[in-house]
């Protein structure tokens, strides 16, 4: 007897509801709107069996290309062999949420636009690019209550 490969095989935990979060789904899931081009995360909700994504797409992020009555069409790129294939899946609203990866970018764009405006009015030069964490500056470390400890290896001793 081998390992069976049913549609939902291996999803015992992935599709199960969280502890003490069974039953009615919070209604904000139904109140959110999705437009074509939105970036969405796919997370299957075991409480709603219709319009569920296949287990492969659980945890994937894609772009909405179609909106219908209670579902959205999402484009996902799947690695098959040595290439990416564009996959189009139809998923119900309950298994989708807006991805926050986009949120940070959109916020930064708005902020940069505002800073640029401001700097233009004042006539200053503005630095808009993000900088990675730079090496720390030179500084003095006090030894008040902070005496340096010398570390040395201990000679090996056999314990039985």
């Amino acid at each position: 007897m081998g390992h069976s490969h049913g549609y939902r095989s291996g999803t015992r935990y992935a599709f199960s509801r969280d502890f003490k979060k069974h039953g009615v789904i919070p209604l904000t899931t139904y109140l959110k709107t999705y437009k074509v081009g939105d970036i969405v995360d796919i997370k299957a909700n075991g409480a709603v069996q219709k319009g569920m994504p296949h287990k492969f797409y659980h945890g994937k992020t894609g772009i909405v290309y179609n909106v219908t009555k209670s579902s959205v069409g999402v484009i996902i790129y799947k690695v098959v062999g040595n290439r990416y294939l564009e996959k189009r899946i139809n998923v119900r609203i309950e298994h989708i949420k807006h991805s926050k990866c986009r949120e940070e970018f959109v916020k930064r764009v708005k902020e940069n636009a505002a800073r640029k405006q401001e700097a233009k009015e004042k006539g200053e030069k503005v630095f808009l690019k993000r900088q990675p964490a730079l090496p720390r500056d030179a500084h003095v470390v006090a030894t008040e209550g902070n005496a340096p400890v010398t570390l040395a290896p201990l000679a090996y001793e056999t314990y039985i």
Partner: protein
Amino acid sequence: MPFTKLIKTPAYFSRYQTPYRRRREGKTDYYARKRLITQHKAKYNSPKYRLVVRFTNKDIVAQIVSSQVTGDIVLAAAYAHELPRYGIKHGLTNWSAAYAVGLLVARRTLQKLGLDETYEGVVEADGEFSLTEAVEDGPRPFKAYLDVGLHRTTTGARIFGVLKGASDGGIYIPHNEKRYPGYDIESKELDADTLSKYILGGHVAEYMETLADDDEEKYRQVFKGYIEDNIEADAIADIYTDAHAAIREDPSPQPTEKKSKEEYAAESKKYRQTKLTMEERLAKRAAKIASLVGTGAAAEEEEEEEEDEE
């Protein structure tokens, strides 16, 4: 005692999932709410309105509500306690009052949206079943769905009074005639006369006459308000027709007078619990001890006297 097993252990409580607050309070049916709120995703942000009807012991609440993520927003509301303004002073939770409240909330929303000229609805309440139809080359009617909450939908229920009033007021509420009073299950027909009788308080008038003939005392007890205002059974229909006309004339809401912030603060300060100071608490303690010692001494004296007497 029969053998009992302790069920509510700490383990039980740590695993227990409490239902949503409004379910615990028994006020919201989430199965129905989900279906009433969800909008067609391809309709994006256009709001979905529902006509919320709730009955309390002495009042009727009718609201046109739409749902957003931050909370529900009420577009317009009407209460039965507003009906005295239009001439209905008694029987504020009966079928006819429900019709009037539905009519009031409908005219109010249409006035607010500027649709009241285009959609007059049914001006003379005749008890026929009709749905508000779209006007040619003009805006489509305002659509709302009936939200009964947890109320049982039996034939002749007052919620459908509100539904009929709002529908006759000009709002499009998809429904059918099955639950109106006057609907016969066997012949599957609506008797328009019975329905118009209910709209104009005919059922109340009939009961008034029957009681006046049969049981004078009960009549005086039940219809005390009507007797005081000298309202006869045959005058009731006119009260309601006049009220409907008055509602159509001026449905605009009149906000009630609210007290100022200072007045409210002063009111709540009356009920605030002030803590005693240390001195006051010690004084209270000393007084209590003194009174106990006093009675103890008196009791001791009494006992001594009794002993002496014996």
